[in-house]
């Protein structure tokens, strides 16, 4: 199945929105910082405005306070007021530090008898403070003028205070003059002259600082609007990002999560429904995957069922074959047994006839025929006996256990001692490991193979190949779980192409030797029924070597 995948290098809309949202957020943060700064600018403008008013107020207050202290001294003659007068001047000229709360109401309370507060701020002249306050040149000139006028008036006030201190005959007139100096029209005129520039300054400064505040406010409004707009854009972007995510997923995150959890727990049964036009989404692909998995799962279960069915069928067939085999085996056994009977009688009667007619048959031809009858009957008996042995070869005769091969070979050699002596053969036996088999069949194995070696190892005149006496070697070795036995002779051997045929039933490779051609077939049947095998090789240096393998121990 082909999935519509996003080409490499092309990101989904979701990622584009994520990037845009992040950028927008950064812009929003910057906008907020600028907005906050602009709000602060308004505050600073207002501060400046307030500061300016306070400075001007101090100038006016100090002027009024000087007037009040001078007048009070002239009238009362109390020297404390003269001291206050001087202090006011010193603070204004930066010769003494400003007491705390000096810009608030101060001298009214001191005049009323309250102790003057100690100096708080630094000793700075009022003009210097004004210069620092960032006034325009025009504004500063107005204030400096007012200050100069006020300083000029102090000369009048000092003169008045000096006259008030006069003693002697002229004292009364001098005191009156002093009082007049501080109350006459000229004094008031000078006072108004001081206030005039202050008035103009207030006008100028008020207008200017108000403008600054207004501009700052306008800027803050614009920046605030921008911030709000950006915030709204961010909300829109987040909303679109969510839409893009839903489009990519093909459903809500919860939906996709639930489907994945179901597939993860190997539940493919419930199909995933995808909205039209959303096939090309994660949920769409998930639906296809789920459908595929469902199909595969179904096929797997079907295959499993078929396999189970096939297995049962095979079991049934194996049973049928086993039964059929058992039937055939029984049939062969019964047949061989029943054929034995007439053959035995035939042999018996032929022998009896030979005995009865012994010396009375003149014709050689008749004697030959009679001999052939007896001979063929005995042969038939042997063949049937071999068939019975062959049929029985796959069944144990006695308990299967660890059979001693040395003992089996020794027994066989004892039985065959006459024939061994007759052939003049020498037999060497190595140490033979035990095999897992019943003893009678292990005896059979060595019996057949030794018999063959004695029969076919010699060629003629009791001599082996090239006139050398027959030598038979028997050895064995453990090979993993198997034990292998080898019976080798130095006889003429068997050509490679005839070696397999030697194991066929009734197959003979030579004629007139008295064999029936069943021996090696029995050897193979015994070995294979015990999970082993049997075959022929050439003895190194020439000759026939028969090998058979059996299990060495029970666990197999």
């Amino acid at each position, binding site marked *: 199945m082909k999935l519509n995948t996003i080409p490499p290098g092309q990101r989904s809309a979701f990622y584009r929105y994520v990037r845009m949202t992040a950028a927008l957020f950064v812009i929003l943060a910057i906008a907020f910082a600028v907005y906050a700064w602009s709000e602060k600018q308004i505050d600073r403008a207002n501060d400046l405005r307030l500061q300016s008013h306070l400075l001007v107020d101090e100038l006016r207050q100090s002027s009024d306070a000087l007037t009040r202290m001078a007048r009070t001294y002239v009238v009362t003659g109390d020297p404390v007021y003269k001291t206050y007068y001087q202090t006011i001047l010193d603070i204004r000229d930066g010769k003494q530090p400003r007491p705390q709360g000096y810009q608030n109401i101060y001298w009214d309370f001191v005049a009323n008898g309250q102790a003057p507060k100690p100096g708080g701020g630094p000793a700075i002249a009022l003009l210097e403070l004004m210069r620092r306050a960032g006034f325009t040149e025009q504004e500063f000139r107005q204030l400096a003028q007012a200050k100069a006028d006020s300083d000029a008036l102090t000369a009048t006030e000092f003169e008045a205070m000096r006259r008030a201190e006069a003693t002697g005959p002229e004292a009364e007139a001098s005191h009156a003059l002093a009082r007049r100096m501080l109350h006459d029209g000229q004094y008031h005129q000078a006072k108004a002259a001081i206030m005039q520039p202050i008035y103009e300054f207030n006008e100028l400064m008020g207008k200017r600082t108000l403008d600054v505040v207004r501009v700052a406010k306008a800027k803050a409004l614009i920046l605030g609007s921008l911030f709000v707009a950006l915030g709204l854009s961010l909300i829109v972007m987040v909303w679109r990002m969510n839409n893009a995510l839903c489009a990519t997923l093909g459903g809500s995150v919860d939906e996709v999560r639930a489907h994945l959890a179901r597939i993860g727990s190997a539940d493919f049964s419930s199909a995933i429904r995808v909205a039209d036009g959303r096939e090309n989404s994660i949920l769409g692909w998930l639906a296809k995957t789920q459908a595929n998995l469902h199909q595969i799962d179904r096929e797997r279960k079907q295959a499993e069922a078929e396999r189970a069915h096939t297995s049962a069928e095979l079991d049934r067939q194996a049973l049928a074959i086993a039964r059929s085999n058992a039937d055939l085996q029984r049939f062969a056994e019964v047949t061989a047994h029943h054929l034995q009977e007439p053959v035995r009688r035939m042999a018996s009667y032929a022998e009896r006839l030979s005995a009865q007619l012994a010396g009375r048959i003149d014709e050689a031809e008749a004697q*030959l025929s009679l001999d*052939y009858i007896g*001979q*063929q009957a005995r042969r038939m008996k042997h063949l049937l006996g071999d068939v019975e042995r062959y049929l029985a070869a796959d069944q144990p005769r006695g308990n299967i256990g660890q059979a001693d091969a040395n003992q089996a070979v020794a027994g066989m050699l004892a039985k065959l001692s006459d024939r061994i002596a007759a052939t003049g053969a020498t037999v060497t036996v190595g140490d033979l490991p035990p095999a897992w088999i019943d003893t009678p069949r292990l005896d059979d194995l060595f019996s057949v193979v030794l018999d063959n070696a004695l029969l076919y190892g010699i060629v003629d005149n009791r001599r082996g190949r090239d006139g050398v006496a027959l030598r038979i070697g028997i050895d064995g070795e453990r090979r993993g779980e198997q034990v292998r036995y080898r019976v080798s002779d130095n006889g003429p051997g068997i050509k490679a192409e*005839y070696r397999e045929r030697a194991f066929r039933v009734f197959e*003979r490779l*030579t*004629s*007139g030797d008295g064999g029936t*051609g069943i021996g090696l077939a029995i050897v193979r049947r015994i070995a294979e029924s015990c999970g082993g095998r049997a075959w022929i090789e050439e003895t190194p240096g020439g000759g026939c070597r028969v090998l058979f393998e059996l299990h060495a121990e029970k666990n197999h």
Partner: protein
Amino acid sequence: MNTESKPFVILLAEDEPADAHLLEIALNENRILANLHRVADGREVLEFLRRQGPRFADSPRPDLILLDLNMPCMDGRECLAELKKDEALRDIPAVILTTSEVERDIVASYRLGAAGYITKPVDILQFVTAIRMLGDYWINLVRLPQRPG
């Protein structure tokens, strides 16, 4: 047609002496004057025809070969196949003479180039008759290729 100077030569391949004797009896009963040679298996047939080994150094070329099917070592079928592969020997007629009545054996034998297929009857009289007919056909009726020597 038999020639006066050269007697009819039959090569019998038969591992069982009793069966070989039966053929001798049948030939005698029918007064068929044939030169009968016997070998025990297919390998010996080829050695006889090719005059291999001291035993077969002077063996004559037979006019007819009678082959048993079941013999040790090289059986009748293998022997027949070998004969028909050999350019020098393929023109010698080979007739199967066997106990087997299995159809498969009959078909296989003709496929391999057998000139005939005779089953040995159990009844000796029938066997004698069969050999007489065989003699009439191969010795008297059929003209075989002339042989040198």
